[in-house]
């Protein structure tokens, strides 16, 4: 029943904190738009998934904090303790004195093996607290050194040590520019390694979230905290309890497993993206009402036109007529390309949720030819509203949405690799040119596969 969240590196720890805080605030939110009894069941289910109950009454997050440098962890622990709503476990963190220095090779080949035993013991101890373990959710950036390098190393170890548990990696995709210079190297090394050991990669693009902060949340001076809170909201909208089936009042026992079963039908395709509607500042929220028809119409168009938010959707994009040979589909770099899906999951929460019509997502034209819509599409409906939104929809999608960003990252890394710039920083710690080439090959394959849907 339980999922262990593993927060890695500065980014992973900062976002992890926001996720638990969002979940907790949602639990105490009085506007659940449902009856008291229903709310209590929801709360109980959520606590069962994400928290350990402690004698003091303050819920303890089922999370481990891992970083190779102490500043972020001590701040994160403190912030959680100060919230009064929840906290981290007393012995749930591991840190060292010196970070990985944005070097994937250092995280993967030095910190990884050196601290393997301590970290795996820490995880083992956490797992032993639960009656049953469903899986792991890691939160990590792929730009730096610790989240990316150590994260890839640990994911491999988790796969070996817990072969029957699900592993989902929450990947923070760096801004296109301006964070870390070697981010494209670190990214291709991370992605290619995770592709071997993870069940699914749920991708959060900083550029997209930044735009959401600016356009939808109306924030003028955007801080990392703002960005992280939007990501936390999006994650909460997926992982907060959901009813296990239509009309049932039972909450899902294994949401992570169900999510994988719905969305990852083939191991070559495990890149997942997340879209939410509506998203707006709290001020505007109180003046707005929503209708399911409008929300879902937007969400569907966001999906097929590959818009990452509800502003600036291209309404011209239409599903291709069935029966046309694949060749006639427009190549992926064209702006108005139709975004073909492998599988989609729509999660609806809030008022009148049962009246919402999801027929538009069941059109066979939306999906690759080798899957029936009945297999490719899933819906989870829950009456209890989430995070102050009277009605909200989240779409988790396994589709071509990531082709362009992925292609760009590979292209930039390849450009740099052709000049051999920075490669010496990696070979110093045992990652050779061969390893880079392997990573490029794996990812070019992924691009080709998604291209040919």
């Amino acid at each position, binding site marked *: 029943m339980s999922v262990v969240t593993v927060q890695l590196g500065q980014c992973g720890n900062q976002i992890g904190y926001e996720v638990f805080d969002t979940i907790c605030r949602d639990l105490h939110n009085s506007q659940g738009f449902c009856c008291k009894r229903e709310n209590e069941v929801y709360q109980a289910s959520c606590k069962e998934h994400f928290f350990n109950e402690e004698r003091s009454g303050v819920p303890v997050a089922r999370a481990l904090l891992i970083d190779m440098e102490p500043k972020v962890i001590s701040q994160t622990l403190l912030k959680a303790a100060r919230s009064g709503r929840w906290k981290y476990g007393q012995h749930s963190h591991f840190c060292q004195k010196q970070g990985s*220095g944005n070097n994937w090779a250092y995280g993967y080949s030095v910190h990884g093996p050196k601290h393997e035993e301590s970290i795996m013991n820490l995880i083992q101890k956490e797992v032993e607290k639960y009656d049953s373990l469903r899986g792991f959710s890691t939160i990590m950036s792929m730009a730096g050194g610790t989240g990316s390098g150590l994260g890839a190393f640990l994911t491999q170890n988790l796969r070996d040590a817990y072969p029957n548990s699900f592993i989902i990696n929450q990947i923070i995709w760096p801004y296109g520019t301006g964070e870390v210079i070697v981010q494209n190297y670190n990214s291709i090394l991370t992605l290619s390694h995770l592709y071997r050991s993870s069940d699914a990669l749920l991708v959060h693009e900083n550029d997209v979230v930044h735009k959401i902060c600016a356009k939808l949340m109306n924030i003028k001076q955007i801080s990392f905290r703002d960005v992280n809170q939007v990501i936390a909201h999006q994650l909460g909208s997926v992982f907060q309890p959901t009813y296990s089936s239509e009309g049932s009042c039972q909450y899902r026992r294994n949401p992570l497993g169900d999510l994988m079963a719905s969305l990852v039908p083939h191991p070559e395709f495990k890149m997942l993206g997340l879209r939410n509607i509506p998203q707006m500042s709290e001020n505007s929220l109180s003046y707005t009402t929503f209708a399911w028809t409008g929300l879902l119409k937007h969400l569907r168009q966001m999906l097929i036109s590959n818009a990452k938010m509800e502003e600036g959707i291209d309404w011209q994009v239409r599903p291709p007529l069935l029966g046309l040979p694949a060749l006639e589909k427009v190549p992926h770099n064209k702006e108005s390309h139709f975004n073909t899906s492998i599988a989609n999951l729509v999660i609806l929460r809030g008022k009148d949720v049962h009246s919402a019509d999801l027929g538009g997502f069941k059109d066979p034209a939306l999906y690759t030819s080798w899957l029936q819509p009945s297999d490719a599409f899933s819906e989870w409906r829950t009456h209890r509203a989430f995070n102050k939104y009277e009605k909200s929809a989240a779409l988790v999608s396994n589709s071509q949405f990531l082709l362009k960003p992925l292609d760009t990252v590979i292209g930039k890394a390849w450009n740099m690799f052709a000049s051999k710039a920075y490669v010496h920083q990696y070979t110093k710690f045992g990652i050779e040119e061969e390893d880079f080439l392997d990573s490029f090959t794996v990812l070019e394959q992924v691009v080709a596969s998604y291209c040919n849907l």
Partner: protein
Amino acid sequence: MAQSVVVQVGQCGNQIGRCFWDLALREHAAINKKGIYDDSLKNFFRNVDTRRNGDGVDISKGKIRSLKARAVLIDMEEGVVNEILQGPLKDIFDSKQLITNVSGSGNNWSVGYKVFGSQYRDQIVEKLRQTAEHCDCLQCFFIIHSMGGGTGSGLGTFILNVLEDEFPEVYRFVTSVFPSGEDDVITSPYNSVLAMKELNEHADCVLPIENESLFDIVSRINQMVTSGKPGTTVKPESLITLNEGGIKKKLQEKPFDTMNNIVGNLLLNLTSSARFEGSLNMDLNEITMNLVPFPQLHYLVSSLTPLYTLADVNVPPRRLDQMFSDAFSKDHQLIQADPKHSLYLACALLVRGNVQISDLRRNIERLKSALHFVSWNQEGWKTSLCSVPPVGHSHSLLALANNTCIKPTFIELKKRFTRLYKKKAHLHHYLQVDGMEESCFTEAVSSLSSLIESYNELDVTKGLPIHDPLRLNIVI
């Protein structure tokens, strides 16, 4: 958190070191009001119970007892080091951290490197070891020296070698003051070129400084301060050249202190994100990782902004965006160079204070079209956000550029070296030192030439159309 050790060598190195320690104490005093020895203080300082006998015992937590600088002070004369020991900073150093002599190196690199190097090697290693043993995670040595003289240049680069041998895992960051055109040391081109070879081969990263640039910055600030125009009163503690509020008193200011304070601030800002919290940290090891694409191209041109903050709060604060623009202007670089009109290999922006990621992104977007980046690193930006601003400011920026604009400095150095060397002027002073041969000179100058050539090769690509290399082809 990891620790750093400062190794200040020669007259110039020790003068800058003195300014740095004064400013470091001032910075921590401003932030650490309760007098608690915390992790950020631990970076540069030990906390020692001096009432005990001997070396004193390190106290890891709790109240500050007696702070000791993690530093080794080396000079082959006694003047500057003695002044430090008799001055207001005397309590943070003790005799175990010093190595001095009375004879000086006579502005001769080979005396510093060969004679004093072999004579003092064991002592140097021992002092370094002692200092290192007080750290639980030693990350970086900061060497401060000048290139033109004998001790800083010769013994300084000798120590660089020793550090590589004895502490191969620890980073070596070197702050090098390059000689100016009208240097009064006639042999400075020899000393600098001989030292350059060592920097090329043994430093992880070098921050070159030129006194002319520091001098220009000081003059510009003086003009501003004395202009007397209404609304232009400057907050004295915000001046990048002054140590208002530090331990040293005005009367004790030395002529070079205003200039050296700039270098002190450079080192503080360079390490701020490693010492204090922030929403986007940058550890010291990230600097080399992001800014050094090829091992030898490790020279970083730095600029600090703003130079001061106006005192009158009614005057609208200098716009944040101006701070970013200034960082790229020729006037703010700590060497005589113009990064804007040369080729960037990589650029880091280390921001302190009340600045958010959206401010950073906006300014990068705004400025990047005016800058040239090498074809394979079109988006070569590294950034950090440290939430603690420097004393007297609400925000600040340190820009580090790996840029071909450093090349003219090296070419000029080579030219002046060749001018002397052609005439074999003063050569005998060097060759009479044991272990010095003419080949030392030829090897040093060819090392410099190949460095210049590396920058040339990059420079010729500037402005050329960019062709993306063919990607791997996947057969399905």
